[in-house]
């Protein structure tokens, strides 16, 4: 086999693995976003309303295991999001990770039996369509660091 085609095959394999890693990061960003926010909000509801000028009262929220779990998961979300942004366009990441909204709405419907109105079903459909459209574009269109900034 000529060296050039071997090189082409290696290049194609590298790009495939690269795209797969980006997809894995997208999935982890969406899942940690949903789990972190659900856990944090569950914890804050257990703690109850905090209306205070004293930071000590806010520290009380940290005694709740759900709050701590939520914050830990959101730290993972933030780091994964940054890793994803090091590899992919912001204008790709934003619409694609918006599927978190859809997961929260559908999860609330099936697990907590939340009512979903027609307006909300339409919203879910529009976001899903947006995610599909963005998924069809290449994940990165820039080369090297953005020189136009600073």
């Amino acid at each position, binding site marked *: 086999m000529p060296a050039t085609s071997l090189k082409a095959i290696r290049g194609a394999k590298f790009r495939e693995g690269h795209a797969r*890693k980006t997809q*894995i*990061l997208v999935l982890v960003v969406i899942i940690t976003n949903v789990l972190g926010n659900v856990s944090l909000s569950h914890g804050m509801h257990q703690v109850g309303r905090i209306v205070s000028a004293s930071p000590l009262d806010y520290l009380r929220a940290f005694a709740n295991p759900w709050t701590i779990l939520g914050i830990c998961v959101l730290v993972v979300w933030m*780091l994964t*999001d*940054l*890793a994803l*942004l*090091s*590899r992919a*366009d*912001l*204008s*790709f990441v*934003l*619409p694609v990770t*918006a599927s978190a*909204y859809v997961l929260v*709405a559908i999860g609330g419907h099936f697990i907590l039996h939340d009512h979903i*109105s027609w*307006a*909300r079903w*339409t*919203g*879910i*459909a*529009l*976001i899903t*369509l*947006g*995610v599909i*459209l*963005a998924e*069809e*574009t*290449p994940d990165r*269109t*820039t080369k*090297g*660091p*953005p*020189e*136009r*900034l*600073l």
Partner: protein
Amino acid sequence: MKWLLVAIIAVCNTLGDVLNTAGMKRQGEVESLGPRSFWVMFKHILRNPLVLGGFAALAISFFALLSLLSISSVSFAVPATAISYLLETLLAKYILGEDVRTRRWAAAALVACGVVLLSF
């Protein structure tokens, strides 16, 4: 006051995401997905002024959101999120130099409309 907070949330959120993206692109791609490369990425972030600036902007946006939630209902925060999607796509095109064409504009617009409808 409410609309001022909405504006602060949208602008700081956008600024934070754009600075983070610019900073991470400058830092270079996170190639492997193991804990080691994440640790290396984290150490680089601590010396990356763009990402640190991005964190500061996101923190301001977060505290503005808390203030907004304390004086009005959750639905008031929705326009800020929707505006952010469009503003960020605009800056991604003109500042970060990303190739934003019909599909990505349509995707951003659909998500922005969807977020508004989800709040009903």
